[in-house]
């Protein structure tokens, strides 16, 4: 596994722990279909959050969240629908979240959770 992929895996684990610590129930991780991959699906009360996780070693080349482009968000939206259909889940509210992590694979430099980043 490439070094950057390792870092990404690590970031997703960190993000999952963060969500659990904040009262979320993690429903799914790394769910794939032909449209792509959802990093984390988590539920808090009646809302389901589809979470994109971005991890970078430093903020020198921009904040990790800056790497989430509009086209990536559009894809997440499609994926959210696909996941609900595949898992026969109906939720009162679904939303797209983003978590940006700066860390080196061992220690967390910073972690930011932005909720409902589209519409």
């Amino acid at each position: 596994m490439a070094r950057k992929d390792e870092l990404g895996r690590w970031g997703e684990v960190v993000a999952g722990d963060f969500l659990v610590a904040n009262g979320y129930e993690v429903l799914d991780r790394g769910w794939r279909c032909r449209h792509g991959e959802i990093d984390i699906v988590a539920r808090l009360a009646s809302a389901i959050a589809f979470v994109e996780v971005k991890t970078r070693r430093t903020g020198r080349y921009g904040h990790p969240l800056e790497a989430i482009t509009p086209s990536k968000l559009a894809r997440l939206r499609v994926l959210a629908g696909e996941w609900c259909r595949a898992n026969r889940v109906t939720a009162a509210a679904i939303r797209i979240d983003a978590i940006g992590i700066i860390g080196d694979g061992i220690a967390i430099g910073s972690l930011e959770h932005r909720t409902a980043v589209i519409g």
Partner: protein
Amino acid sequence: MTIGRTRSVALSGLSGHLVDIEADIASGLPALVIIGLPDASLGEAKDRVRSAIANSGLVMPPTRVTVNLSPASLPKQGSGFDLAIALAILAGSRDVPTESVASCVHLGELALDGRLRPVAGVLPAVVAARDAGASRIMVPAGNRAEAELVPGIEVIPVSSLAHAVRFHGVDITVHDVDVIEPPREPEPEPTQRDLSDIVGQPDIISALIAAAAGGHHMFMLGPPGAGKTMIAERLVDILPDLTPEESLEVTSISSLARVAHTSRLATRPPFVAPHHTATAVAIVGGGSGIIRPGAVSRASRGVLFLDEAPEFASTVLDSLRQPLESGDIVIHRANTSARFPANVQLVLAANPCPCGNAGVDDATCLCTPDRRRRYLARLSGPILDRIDLHLPVSRVRRAQLFDTTLPRVTTAEARERVANARARAADRWGFTRPDPLELRSGRFRLKPTAVRSLDAALDRGALTMRGYDRVIRIAWTLADCDGSDTPIADHVGRALYLRQGVPV
């Protein structure tokens, strides 16, 4: 949700409006959105601001930032808002004290490395900020001299964004940077010309002094080489210095038109001589997006000289009619309008025919009568009717050139005579000139014996009513130049000749 605020200035024409700039640092993915009718160069501010902040050792908030320029309905152009946008964002993220930023007006374009670039129109912008009650304004260091021309407001020149942030009370390292200076125009060479260069044409000299004294428009008709351009240039030399108010207006226009680096107030009236291929927009001003002043505004409070006047497109000449009448020009575009001053003294010059030889002794005109007629007919009646002094200019003969008995008037002498004549008119009329009716029948009515020749011309139909009024005005100017209290028959006769002297 936090908000940072500051102010900047949007110019439309010479008048500026304070613009409130607010930056909302919201939750969300990193994005910078600018709203409030920005044009393309202002929309690009987001990329300049982002880079400038990062390269100044500061942090662009990694969230959704919405910058609003208010009033949102006022179209805003140009790059002068960069500094204000950057500081509003930094104040919103609480990296810079909010009160300090909010209490200051900011102008300036950011370079990607965080330095400040000078912008056009600083002088009118600073004036507008002061008039709107702002107490201090931050400008690019390169515009310092220009901004400091305006009294009554504290000017804070800064060379970079880091420098600006430090001024607002943040402990940040400011690296010494090279101040970005505006492009410098070479200093104008001190003029060598003098009125005494004009030899052998005493009539022209006295007409020129009358034109300067009374602010009368002038039309010169003469063959090539008779010295029409030379005469026009010397008209501006004998005009009095600008008053402080006029000086600010002239300097503001040149700041806006970016015709020169403005570091001191203009003291002499401008002289603008556009080429005859100029378009209407070049003359009256215009342009899409940013409306720029045209030649008629750049020449405001000075002389607009149109050489080879019949070669100008007739639409261009006719577009001058309204500004000549009202002294200003309002340019309308779909989404905005701008008012510029257009208080010019117009000087037209024309050859008598396309070949230039008509009416010249010892030369043969090769033009057909029809061509000749068409040539001068391009100068439309309405525009010539607004011109008071019609001067025939002829070539100087050798005898005149070496005739030492002819008086020579220097620029200094002429300027003094002009100043005296103007003082006399101001004493009599105060600040407002009397309207034609008052001149014709009010307390300034001339003696019937004085206006006999004029009445005769009106009866013959050789003169319009407007022409009649103009002649009386010229007569008053001539009397002022001679130092007499009221025009006598001789002044009226000379005035009539000056108005009607050129058969067109």
